[in-house]
């Protein structure tokens, strides 16, 4: 039957795509392992994972948004604002650490919610709306922190959120920082939301054909707001993780992170025109980027050149995806 061949064809294409992504990551690993003995060590692998965490969190969040056919440019500075707000909660107001975490994540969610409302109710194009939010969040972070880092010196447990090691306690010697653990849990969570729940279904539906979704009776405005808020939650978690890792909220950091995250999503095969994408793709994309940077650093390639190579990788990855689609 024709449907059977369809299925087979689609299945093969899907396999090829997954293979291409994982294959590229694997190739990078093999290449760097052969090039330098310092690459494939437990310490370095952990540091790659750690380096992926924050970017990965942002990328997971923005994956949801990009699948709707939208974009969120504010994730970088909203992450900073979230970090600053947890600093305000914990260091300025001496609130318990868990409230500080909630405050940070909540800040991210609020910003996402605001993006969602501006985009769905005021009908601003996502690019413009989130560009505005990017500047708002950047400014607020500087104002609130008075442009100085906020340190978490009197709350030592805060830094353990990211840099402590539950795994290390259970299996001595394997000191995988908690940040990695949190990232893995977030990946699982994001995958479930995207593939098993109503939110994910409507995410794809809106990105695939917004008008059809509306005519099918979906409250598109509401669901867009939900999705931008969801993105904000992941970004907020990224912010708290960042602050915990640095044991301080750095108000000047963050701009430019949004582009790295979007690059990871795109490398992972999520289509910027919406309707297609996966969390696994995004995670692999994020790993490809951090592995590349890490490996080039180990090979003593100057930082400036690392950026150039990353750019070429983005173009190459998307080109591969275009070829795949034609095939």
């Amino acid at each position, binding site marked *: 039957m024709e449907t059977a061949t369809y299925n087979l064809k*689609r299945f093969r294409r899907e396999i090829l795509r997954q293979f291409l992504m994982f294959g590229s990551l694997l190739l990078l690993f093999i290449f760097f392992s052969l090039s330098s003995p310092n690459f494939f060590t437990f310490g370095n692998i952990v540091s790659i994972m750690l380096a992926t965490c924050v970017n990965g969190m942002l990328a997971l969040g923005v994956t949801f948004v990009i699948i709707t056919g939208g974009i969120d440019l504010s994730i970088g500075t909203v992450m900073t604002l979230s970090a600053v707000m947890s600093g305000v909660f914990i260091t300025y107001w001496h609130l318990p650490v868990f409230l500080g975490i909630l405050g940070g994540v909540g800040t991210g969610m609020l910003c996402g919610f605001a993006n969602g409302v501006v985009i769905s109710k005021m009908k601003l194009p996502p690019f413009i709306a989130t560009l505005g939010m990017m500047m708002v969040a950047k400014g607020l972070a500087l104002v609130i922190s008075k442009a100085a880092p906020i340190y978490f010196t009197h709350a030592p447990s805060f830094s353990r959120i990211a840099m402590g090691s539950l795994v290390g306690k259970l299996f001595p010697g394997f000191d995988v920082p908690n940040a990695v653990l949190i990232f893995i849990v977030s990946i699982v969570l994001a995958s479930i939301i995207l593939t098993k729940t109503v*939110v994910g*279904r409507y995410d794809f*539906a809106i*990105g695939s054909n917004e008008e059809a979704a509306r005519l099918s*009776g*979906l409250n598109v405005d509401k669901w867009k707001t939900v999705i931008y808020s969801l993105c904000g939650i992941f970004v907020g978690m990224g912010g708290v993780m960042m602050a915990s890792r640095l044991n301080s909220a750095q108000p000047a950091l963050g701009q430019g992170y949004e582009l790295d995250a979007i690059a990871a999503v795109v490398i992972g095969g999520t289509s910027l025109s919406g309707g*297609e994408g996966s969390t696994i793709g995004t995670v692999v994309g994020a790993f490809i980027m951090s592995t590349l940077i890490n490996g080039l650093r180990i090979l003593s390639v100057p930082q400036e050149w690392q950026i150039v190579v990353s750019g070429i990788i983005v173009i190459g990855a998307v080109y591969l995806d275009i070829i795949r689609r034609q095939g």
Partner: protein
Amino acid sequence: MKEPLVLMEGIDKSFPGVRALENCRFELMPGEIHALVGENGAGKSTLMKILTGVFQKDAGHIIYKGKEVRIPNPRAAQELGISIVHQELNLMPHLTVAQNIFIGRETRRKGFSLFLDEEEMNRRAQELLEMFHMRIDPRIKVQELTVAKQQMVEIAKALSFNAEVLIMDEPTATLSEAEVGELFQILRKLREKGMGIIYISHRLEELKEIADRVTVMRDGHYIGTLNIQEVTIDRIISMMVGRNIYETSSKGRIDADAEIVLEVKNLSRGREMKNVGFRLRKGEILGLAGLVGSGRTEVARAIFGADPVDSGEIYVKGQKAHIKSPSDAIRHGIAYLSEDRRRYGLMLGLSVEDNVILPSMKDFLNFNCFINRKKSKEKCEEYVGKLRIKTPTLAQKVKNLSGGNQQKVIVAKWLMKNCDILIFDEPTRGIDVGAKSEIYKLLNELAEEGKSIIMISSELPEILRMSHRILVMCEGRITGEINAQEATEELVMKYATMRNKNE
């Protein structure tokens, strides 16, 4: 007598500046396929949008199953059991069939309502599709299906609401003949089950085959409802346009010694074109007939240089022409007007003026770089007047014009470029009946002025009425050449189905 399923009476609707509907009426019985016809802009869509809750009526009543109802939004219409399958399909290509059918009312996992029960939805979709003998796998992504299958998914989706009224808006516009047959079978099955089907179509020939009654609208008014058995298509057309549109063309003979402007010899490419050769004379309208896929468009595109050929020669005005690309063809004065105007013929977002001067931009430049607006305006005004393009100003965006006027803008564009061999591919597709006669008139005028025209058309009456000479194609070969005087539909069809048995 049975009670009507739907009765719309005295419906008025105004938009700012336009009276869209005035005292309109529509009646649908259960177990009936009721055609709704009218020119574009007659108010069919507006009436249906009122019935499906997209628009609100200003006055009048909607009686549904004997009770007056209010339909404030599309959801309410669906809940009443009124579903519509739009001409532009409203599916999400990246989702599966089942996901599309149940979008917005997914089955949830018991006890955990955020999660979806995919298996249950696939099972129910399968049941639904099987009930109507639609052979579609519910797990497949919609983008992998043909348009016809996608349409079936839309119908299945409509039926899954337990619809009692199904509105089909131009369902056959994009289907092949076999697919149309399949669709009609499904519609008949639904009719047997007692559903009321409202069938909107421009293809009037179909109505005889599928519809029970027909309601005609014109300029926002209800004109009449007739039993399809008691009415001829010509009668329907004259009700639609309010006059007889088929003015006979002043078609004379072409002088046997008129200049040969285009000669094609042995044009071949693979299985699509085999040894195609013909001559086109000055002032002639040459009809190119054949079934869909017979190679007509391929020949046109080959002459225009849009696709490469394996072999063959083209002579323009006696000179051998080397045409490797559309720009070569245009230089030789050949223009091709695609059947898909909106996609290949126009920049919809640009103004009439910009569209018209685009190919001949060079003639309107000062210092090779600045557009001389005054000059281009004058020239455009001239063509707009000559071709009777209905546009408020030259600055009007082309997307706001009607189909017929868009077609004329393309003609103006090529005339401005001094093209005198015009290849029209389905010139009246998607154009309503009234505007068609305008296009016919234009073609005749162009020919009388000495332009030469190749007209590809699937509508036999159009080919027969317009052409001086008709070439018929089948499976990439020219199987017949008929003079206008001898041409009949039967003769054209005979040649069009003259398959080469040896292959």
